[in-house]
């Protein structure tokens, strides 16, 4: 359907890249004191894998994503995309941030076109923007400005802005957090469909264990800050997955236990 339109619009579908996070440590300086945020994080992601990252709030998930994106450099350790060291941002690794951070001075269409424009290929690839907008169901709002959108719509525009770049690694920081439950389920299905079709590697931060289990082949659970990898769980279930699946329910109980929520389950 719409995902197919996007896939067609993109002439050379990029396969996913491998991601290697090797002994990464990171810390922030707050008022002279050092705040350790990541402690010896090592994760090796195969090309095309869908990895969900779960952890308590403030443990360092967004920080790790910024390192993967190349926006910050780790205090120690290395990150590699397909054997090459990550030193700076690259459009092959696109981030959908926790806040949509749309540019308020650009219309929806121009926001989605941002990446292509920055790379100087917008002129020949305008249809990709239209296809991405179609994909998130916002074609009718192409000329609207961000202040005219709802929070969920803005988040969808941010998603379209990332997808239009045809990334090798898609980095998602709670991108569906602000959506209503109905749109959320639709977008989850679209995301899986898109990921299967395109084969990009996906890194998804979420606070919703169920979402992680419905979407990912691998769920990584972090500890409290400083974040350590507490568990690395394979989810060997075919897609499309069903929320009621007892196997997933079992994993969910296990994950919530790791997050310290066994009493409430």
């Amino acid at each position: 359907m719409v995902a197919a339109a996007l896939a067609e619009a993109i002439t050379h579908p990029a396969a996913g890249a491998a991601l290697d996070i090797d002994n990464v440590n990171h810390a922030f300086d707050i008022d002279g004191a050092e705040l350790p945020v990541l402690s010896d994080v090592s994760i090796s992601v195969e090309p095309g894998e869908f990895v969900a990252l779960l952890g308590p709030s403030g443990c360092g998930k967004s920080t790790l994503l910024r390192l993967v994106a190349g926006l910050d450099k780790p205090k120690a350790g290395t990150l590699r995309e397909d054997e090459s060291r990550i030193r700076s941002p690259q459009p092959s690794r696109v981030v959908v941030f926790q806040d949509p951070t749309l540019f308020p001075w650009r219309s929806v269409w121009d926001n989605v076109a941002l990446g292509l424009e920055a790379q100087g290929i917008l002129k020949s690839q305008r249809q990709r923007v239209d296809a991405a907008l179609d994909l998130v169901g916002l074609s009718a709002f192409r000329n609207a400005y961000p202040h005219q959108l709802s929070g969920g719509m803005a988040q969808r525009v941010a998603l379209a802005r990332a997808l239009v770049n045809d990334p090798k690694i898609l980095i998602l920081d709670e991108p569906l957090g602000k959506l209503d439950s109905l749109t959320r389920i639709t977008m989850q299905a679209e995301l899986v469909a898109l990921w299967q079709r395109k084969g990009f590697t996906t890194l998804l931060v979420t606070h919703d264990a169920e979402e992680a289990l419905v979407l990912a082949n691998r769920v990584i659970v972090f500890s409290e800050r400083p974040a350590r990898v507490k568990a690395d769980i394979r989810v060997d279930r075919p897609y499309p997955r069903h929320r009621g699946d007892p196997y997933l329910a079992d994993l969910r109980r296990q994950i919530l236990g790791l997050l310290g929520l066994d009493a409430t389950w």
Partner: protein
Amino acid sequence: MSTYSLSDGLASGAPRISRAPLLAAWVKESGAGVAASAAWIAFGLSCLWWEDVGDWSRTHSLGIAAFVIAAITLFGTVGADYLGSAGRALRQRAPWLVALGVFLTLWEVATAKFAWLPLPFFPPPQAIIEVYTDDLPKLLDSVFASVRLQLGGYLIGATIGFLTGVSIGWSRAVGYWVHPVLRFIGPLPATAWLPIAFFTFPSSWSASTFLIALATGFPVTVLTWSGVASVSNAYYDVARTLGAKPSFLVLKVAIPAALPHVFVGLFMGLGSSFAVLVVAEMIGVKAGLGWYLQWAQGWAAYANMYAALIVMSLLCSGAITLLFAIRDRLLVWQKGTVKW
């Protein structure tokens, strides 16, 4: 049958019931217009009824013009429904027309007819009209001279200020060198440079251009700079992950994000450059509205001064209106902007 007569009765009863409200509605819609018309008739009569205490040639024409305006106002507001947006605009402004008519009547009576206000200093309306009709070439020359000087200086100052502001906001090295200079020179009123500028520049015209540019440049620089500096890092992060190069970050992220600030700077610069323009014209440049004011004062030609002041105020207000129109065009994406 019964329903029929019921609705029939309602239909015929309706106008009878609503006659009084209809009248009230008419008064509400057209009352101000009729009052405005009356006020302007009063003004016309005040021109023609008594003899002038002085010798002014336009009194009669002014009285006739007031009657014409009264007539236009009356027919315009009463027939507003047939005049579309012009009619609506007229109705909306009718209360102001009342106030204006009353003010002009009082002015006319207090000056030309009974000289309650001391005469040479408070000329009547017809004296000012006389300036516009009889001294028009000189006034127009002054307007052109002022506009040319102001426009040149303002554009130069705004451009340099904008570029400087972006560079300071963007580059630490530029900031290191320019910031202290800016702090030292910027707060100085541009007029303080007047004596030196008229010495050192080859012509008083170039000196004035420099001063106007200086007065404009400082606020534009500071506000552009603060605009660029306050752009959220999140925008840069987004652009960088999408493959933006530094030039893209400046041109397509920093500058558009800073634009609301830039317009505040342009607005402030416009205000302070007007002040410099008038002073420069009064002191150095032998042309322009400032010089016209000075000249009129020398001849004790008070009507000319008021006439020039009115023109000047229209020009300044027009310039600000233009600036706001440009801003509204460029910043459509902002919500809740102030209307000028």
